[in-house]
């Protein structure tokens, strides 16, 4: 005798199956989805020295950093480096009086820079700046506008000088950025300079002429120091103050 093909359990299974199919079909019919896709990039910041010669200057400032006496100098900027050569010598007495040597230069973002908001800072002399050492390249004696070799006295004047460096960035008109570097003679070097001889007895027979002096100095000792300072530019909002330790 044949068993009943459609038992009770089979009926229940079938009913559930059909019900679930109906539920899924209904859900798929009354459903819509939307999606959003976003691409995020971190951006780049790149600045360089400006090519406008009018924004470059060198000067001696008072103890507060205000320009007092301009100094004639030649500026040769490339993209990432700036070379400065002075046309006249700096009187050491000005540095001993606490005055600062100030260098101004223009900074502009490059064409591929997407981060163009820079971190502007002000000069704060109440805090100690970073120390930098200037090495002496040469020392000559100038007498009546002519340069002579110092001879055995050269070692006295070719000692390195210690300076405190302050770096600031200010905003000029038309979204122009001007960087400044202030150099202040340290107390240690000031004391060393004060101990240097102020009177030289020179034997004319032993003088070695080096040529005409090109810095407009008539009489004195001219020492040339080399300086190399990294200048960092930060984006706006950073909490790094490069002008102080």
């Amino acid at each position, binding site marked *: 005798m044949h068993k009943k093909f459609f038992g009770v359990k089979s009926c229940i299974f079938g009913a559930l199956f059909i019900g679930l199919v109906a539920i899924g079909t209904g859900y798929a019919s009354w459903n819509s989805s939307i999606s959003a896709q976003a691409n995020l990039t971190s951006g780049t910041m790149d600045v360089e020295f400006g090519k406008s010669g009018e924004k470059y200057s060198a000067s001696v400032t008072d103890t507060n950093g205000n320009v007092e006496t301009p100094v004639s100098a030649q500026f040769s900027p490339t993209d990432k480096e700036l070379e400065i050569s002075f046309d006249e010598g700096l*009187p050491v007495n000005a540095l001993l009086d606490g005055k600062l040597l100030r260098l101004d230069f223009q900074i502009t973002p490059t064409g591929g820079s997407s981060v163009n908001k820079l971190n502007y800072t002000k000069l704060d002399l109440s805090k100690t700046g970073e120390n930098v050492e200037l090495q002496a390249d040469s020392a000559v*004696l100038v007498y009546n506008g002519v340069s002579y070799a110092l001879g055995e006295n050269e070692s006295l004047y070719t000692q390195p000088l210690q300076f405190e460096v302050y770096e600031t960035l200010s905003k000029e008109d038309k979204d122009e950025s001007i960087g400044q570097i202030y150099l202040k003679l340290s107390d240690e070097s000031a004391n060393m300079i004060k101990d240097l001889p102020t009177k030289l007895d020179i034997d004319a027979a032993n*003088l070695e002429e080096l040529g005409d002096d090109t810095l407009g100095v008539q009489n004195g000792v001219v020492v040339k120091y*080399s300086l190399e300072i990294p*200048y960092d*530019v930060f*984006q706006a909002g950073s909490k790094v103050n490069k002008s102080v330790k």
Partner: protein
Amino acid sequence: MKKTVLAVLVAVMAMSSGITAFAYWKSELKVKANIPVVYDVDIEMSGDVKGQEKVDPADKGDITIRPDQGKKSSSESVQEESTANTEEQTIKESIQNKPSIEETKESIIKSENNTESKAEADTNNEEIKR
């Protein structure tokens, strides 16, 4: 077991949410300079500096320009000595070539004697003719 695993997961999530990262962009430039510093020094020069001859302003109206005697170089002094020596030599030669004073006196005396003898001869001839 489940409680320990759950506790570890909660701790990890709490710590990860407390860590904050802060970064900023920086661009580096470089500044190079040669700074000449002038030291005031009193210079006392002993001796003469070469190549710095001075001309007195009073000599400007003169026809000849006289160099200062105290400021001649060694080469110039040697040259002047040599010229002075040659001048002396020429003077000496000229003196040597000239006849001495005694010789001139003798020549004068001789010439006088000759004239006297000629005069005597003439008078004698005149007397003979008479």
